[in-house]
């Protein structure tokens, strides 16, 4: 509904006000006159009328009234697909790369997730005042710079869709580390996007990835200690959500998806199998590394190669990586060296990892590993 109004009015604040007014009128009338046949359409049309009335009243905006189309939509022929398209347009507006990333995230949660400013502020551990300023800055920039309410043209779409996916995944990862609300919100947004863009494999890939990860959230921590995948209590996994995530992944693959999110979802899915197919996981990481050129992905690839039975090849691959400041580079080297029986070198690697560890659970884990050697 908000999407439709923002599109119509070209202004977030006016849209929010108009929506609130429409809800207030509904609360007054519906109990008396009954709920109209198309409540959503009724609310949007009422809000549009209210907004136009308000604009008419505001003399300073008098000349702008000519720019607004006359409200002719009647409730009965209110087109639901219109609302659908408008939501998609709003997603692309909120995630426009010309906006600062924190503004994109906040705006997406506010306008599409329907979260209150105070809730968003709490989730990102900033004051409500700061979050309000962040939202205002983003809204002002949209208006002043003419960021369009539109789904980008086909030749711009791949890049711009990447930006949308990145914002949703960022919201998910904020929630991954314990604030479950945001993770669930990201999944909801991912589902909206996948519904609105049913032919985009990466939209389905991201949704599948988030669902499968989310299904394991209860097994991920024991107290405050992080539990590694291999040690997780699988009875704590949400198996129906894993199955649902896999169905979404199947759809992405059927659409010919080979992008980074589809591959990551495939890896997540493989890792929830009873017996993990490590050669296949290694192959997926190889493809992902090819796509992203990321050394961290190369590191994960090496781990999968080791799990598939070849720690020596894994160590050779790891030694080529330039990740000296990265904790998991050293802990992975330590683990591989330990498996190869090179205990002295393994100890040195674990000690280096311990120097880089910042959280208590990580230090505890590494100390325990060192003591075992």
């Amino acid at each position, binding site marked *: 509904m908000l999407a439709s109004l923002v599109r119509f009015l070209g202004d977030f604040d006016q849209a929010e006000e108009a929506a609130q007014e429409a809800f207030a009128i509904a609360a007054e009338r519906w109990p008396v006159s009954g709920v109209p046949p198309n409540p959503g359409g009724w609310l949007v049309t009422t809000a549009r009328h209210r907004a136009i009335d308000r604009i008419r009243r505001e003399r300073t905006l008098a000349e702008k009234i000519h720019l607004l189309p006359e409200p002719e939509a009647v409730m009965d022929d209110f087109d639901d697909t219109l609302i659908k398209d408008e939501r998609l347009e709003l997603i692309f507006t909120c995630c*426009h790369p*010309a906006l600062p990333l924190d503004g994109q995230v906040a705006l997406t949660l506010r306008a599409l997730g329907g979260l209150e400013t105070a809730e968003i502020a709490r989730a990102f551990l900033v004051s409500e005042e700061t979050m309000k300023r962040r939202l205002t800055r983003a809204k002002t920039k949209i208006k*002043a*710079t*003419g*960021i*369009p309410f*539109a789904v*980008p*043209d086909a030749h*711009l779409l791949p890049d711009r869709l990447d930006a949308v996916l990145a914002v949703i995944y960022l919201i998910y990862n904020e929630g991954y580390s314990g604030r479950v609300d945001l993770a669930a919100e990201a999944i909801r947004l991912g589902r909206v996007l996948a519904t609105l863009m049913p032919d985009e494999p990466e939209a389905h890939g991201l949704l599948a990835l988030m669902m499968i990860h989310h299904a394991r959230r209860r097994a991920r921590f024991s107290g405050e200690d992080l539990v590694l995948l291999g040690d997780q209590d699988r009875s704590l996994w949400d198996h129906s959500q894993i199955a649902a995530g896999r169905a979404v992944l199947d759809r992405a693959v059927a659409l010919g998806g080979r992008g980074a999110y589809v591959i990551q979802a495939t890896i997540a899915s493989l890792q929830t199998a009873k017996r993990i197919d490590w050669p296949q996981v290694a192959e997926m990481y190889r493809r992902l590394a090819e796509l992203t050129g990321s050394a961290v992905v190369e590191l994960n690839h090496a781990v999968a190669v080791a799990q598939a039975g070849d720690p020596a090849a894994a160590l050779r691959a790891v030694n080529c990586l330039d990740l000296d400041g990265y904790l998991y580079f050293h802990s992975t080297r330590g683990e591989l060296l330990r498996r190869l029986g090179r205990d002295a070198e393994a100890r040195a690697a674990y000690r280096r990892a311990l120097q880089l560890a910042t959280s208590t659970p990580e230090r505890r884990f590494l100390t325990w590993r060192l003591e075992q050697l």
Partner: protein
Amino acid sequence: MQYALMIYAEPGYAEALPEAEREAVRADFSALVDDARCVASAQLQPADTATCVRVAGGRTLMTDGPFADTKEVLGGLILIEAANLDEAIEVAARIPVTRFGGIVEIRPVVAP
């Protein structure tokens, strides 16, 4: 609405290019200037021709050189008429400096 596209480049970048590329840069520029969306354009003389002026206590004070001392300097600007920011970005991305490490800053122009 109108947008100013301000072109920042390293001085002399065009001279350092091979002749064929320089020719392409010139062609791209004239195509931009001929574009119906282009309202006005100006290429500036090098930054060492710059003079900064301010007035203090009724006296006009001058200093030599550009206002900001950065590696990239303002080399020119184009004023365009575009439907929205996306269209302005598309035009900006066609300005040759963007391919050679330069930057184009897009700013909407205050409506009169």
